[in-house]
């Protein structure tokens, strides 16, 4: 059967083009790969190569013709043993295939519910078990180490990799003792090459291992953010669910103390922005231990944002060896009735101190420790605001497109009718972190900022 040669699309955006020149003429014998014509597209002049073998039976579109639509038959190719007479029988009624190149405009599902399937409601996080048994007081640093050690004992596929995690015993001593217990096969010092070792860890996770990848700080993970997002976060989706990436990226995030702009930045909203990742920011030792264990067991890539200043602080942790916390569940650290304060990481402690002072002034604040930033426990926040009718979001990071912006959006979408005051964002100053002690203090959220905000939203100021 003769074959119709169609006007080809030669770029992702081409819908029509000019048939500039026929290189072959009627009666010419052609084989696959031969250049048969030249076409001017919206971008360039391109050669059209034959795909099939045969003889050009008839040219349907003369050279020099402008505006030839993609998929218009431009010539008829005869196969072995056919003559031009067969042309009339060529299947010409084949419907033009639908062009795949017409990009659908981006649609926000919440704007166009009739065209886009609604995002299924997120599965509720596992209920948090009450841990009523005895507790032990440990530092956040020890809690993190214990979590890794317990999971490494439980699962031979868990290993720890990063700069100074083994012989140095951890740049911040978080991995202290792991090398001695698990050996250098499972506790691996890397060179100072974040991009490379993050990629190696992701590759190992593709193959089914469960790496815990330590960044000395999240500032340096900027070099590795391509592998965290493009390789770890997107592969499950791109693979149609075939290939996941069970990995934890962890390390201290946010401002440390007097280390200047390149070593003091909060990356919470950067990673929380990305589908395909889970993002956790623990505050207490119990958070650190329970959530790191959960992160290591989770089959997804988890970004685990610790805080250097918290490492030395002690908290009570359930002594139960099975202690673990669910990812995606916030914790009400202090119940209150007048205003809801959300915070994560070190700012939870600052918010609790502010709440204590507010109580003395007759304002009852409810402090929510977010613990997981993606998926966010919106139910707990919304329920709280329905009671208090006010929300203050606290974070160390910059305000623009920050976690506080997300809280404000959440309030607009789910609590609009419950709000008695605008949402207030308490956050780091919108500047690179200064070094001078006085300026650094001015750049970071303080207890007074939260107290002022609470007075403002309760109209007590």
């Amino acid at each position, binding site marked *: 059967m003769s074959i119709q040669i*169609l006007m*080809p*699309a*030669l*770029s*992702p955006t*081409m819908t029509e083009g000019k048939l500039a020149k026929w290189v072959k003429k009627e009666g010419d014998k052609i084989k*696959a*790969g031969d250049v048969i014509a030249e076409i001017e*597209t919206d*971008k*360039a002049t*391109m*050669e059209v190569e034959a*795909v099939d073998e045969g003889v050009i039976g008839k040219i349907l579109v003369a050279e020099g013709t402008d505006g030839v639509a993609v*998929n218009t038959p431009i010539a008829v190719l005869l196969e072995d043993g056919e003559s031009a007479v067969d042309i009339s029988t060529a299947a010409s009624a084949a419907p033009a*295939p*639908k062009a*795949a*190149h017409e990009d659908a405009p981006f649609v926000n599902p919440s704007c166009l519910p009739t065209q*886009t*399937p609604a*995002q299924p409601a997120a*599965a509720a996080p596992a209920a948090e078990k009450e841990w009523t048994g005895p507790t032990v007081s440990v530092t956040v640093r020890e809690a993190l180490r214990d979590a890794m050690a317990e999971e490494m004992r439980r699962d031979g596929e868990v*290993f720890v990799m990063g700069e100074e995690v083994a012989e140095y015993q951890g740049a911040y001593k978080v991995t202290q003792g792991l090398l001695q217990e698990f050996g250098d096969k499972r506790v691996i010092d*890397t*060179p100072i*090459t974040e*991009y*490379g*070792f*993050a*990629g*190696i860890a*992701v*590759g*190992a*996770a*593709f*193959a*089914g*291992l469960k790496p815990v990848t330590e960044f000395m700080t999240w500032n340096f993970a900027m070099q590795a953010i*391509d*592998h965290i997002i*493009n*390789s770890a976060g997107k*592969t*499950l*989706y*791109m*693979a*149609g*669910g*075939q*290939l996941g990436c069970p990995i934890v990226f962890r390390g201290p995030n946010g401002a440390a103390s007097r280390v200047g702009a390149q070593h003091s930045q909060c990356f919470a909203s950067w990673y929380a922005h990305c*589908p*395909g990742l*889970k993002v956790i920011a623990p505050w207490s030792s119990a958070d650190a231990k329970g959530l790191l264990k959960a992160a290591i067991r989770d*089959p*997804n890539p988890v970004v685990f944002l610790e805080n250097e200043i918290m490492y030395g602080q002690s908290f009570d942790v359930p002594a139960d060896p099975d202690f673990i916390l669910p990812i995606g569940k916030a914790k009400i650290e202090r119940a209150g009735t007048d205003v809801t304060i959300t915070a994560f990481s070190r700012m939870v402690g600052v918010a609790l101190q502010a709440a204590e002072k507010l109580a003395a002034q007759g304002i009852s604040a409810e402090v929510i420790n977010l613990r997981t930033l993606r998926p966010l426990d919106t139910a707990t926040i919304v329920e709280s605001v329905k009671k208090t009718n006010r929300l203050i979001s606290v974070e160390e990071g910059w305000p623009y497109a920050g976690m506080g912006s997300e809280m404000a959006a959440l309030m607009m979408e789910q609590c609009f009718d419950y709000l008695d005051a605008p949402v207030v964002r308490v956050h780091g100053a919108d500047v690179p972190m200064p070094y001078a002690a006085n300026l650094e203090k001015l750049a970071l959220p303080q207890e007074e900022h939260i107290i002022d905000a609470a007075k403002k939203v309760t109209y007590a100021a």
Partner: protein
Amino acid sequence: MASTPTSGKAKLETVKSPSNIASPEQMLEYFKDMLLIRRFEEKAGQLYGMGLIGGFCHLYIGQEAVVVGMQSALQPQDTVITAYRDHGHMLACGMSANGVMAELAGRKGGYSRGKGGSMHMFSREKGFYGGHGIVGATGPLGAGLAFAHKYKGDNGVCTAYYGDGAANQGQIYEAYNMASLWKLPVIFVIENNKYGMGTSQTRHAAGVLYKRGEGYDIPGEKVDGMDVLTVRAAALKAVEYVRSGNGPYILEFDTYRYRGHSMSDPGKYRSKEEVEMMKENHDPIEQIRKAILATGKFAEDDFKKIEKDVKAVVNESAEFAQQSPEPDPSELWTDILVEG
């Protein structure tokens, strides 16, 4: 460290007598595997022209000998990872033409159910780990797959492919460093098709690519990537070296892509004569065809039958891709995270 053939003088010496490298039957298999890739890619180009395949589509035509020769030296537990000129690697790994073509068309029957496209396909079952769109990413990711082989002790080897353009990415050298330090079983396969998109190697790369492992104590070799038997000989040697626990190895294959970088490449950066010269004098499929005929074991009729079979497979894949429905709209929201 074992003897390191980094001088490049060893080129072709290992294949003076092709009969030692592959039997006529094996050679016929390579012919078939390369022809399948060639015809598949031609069909993909055609479907792109019809608007059935969208976005970027990077064809492997001309480079077939590299992946077919490499695969011939691997074992079932070995793994493969490459960048976005990847359809040939998938077929060579044994992935079905139907599944690959349907994915190119963005259909439900594709390997990623239409959600990955030309550059993003995977088959854990066949040891194929993508299909990656970021230039250079396969260096560390491949070293990571090799890390897992070593960690699990499964005696596997990872072949990590990237192009001459990607060979300039910094992360490649971070991967070299750790792969050599930790003696990871990885072969870094540089498919040097002479152009990083439209920039020729002479304009984008200083020095010699296969020698860039020298400072990391990684042996490297430059190999004629247009002759599948030469590729196979080099692959067997590299695989043996790597599987024996010596650490990584670099193979730089001189190869050539006949088509543009992607479909919208006007090809202004190289001459038609150059492309024609490569097609006429170095075509990998013609070379193996001649080598097979020289054995006297097979004749034109054997090729004809293979050509017919390959055409049928490719046509069926195009048919399958067009018949396969688009993914259900609900697929928008699946596979973002592993549930549970």
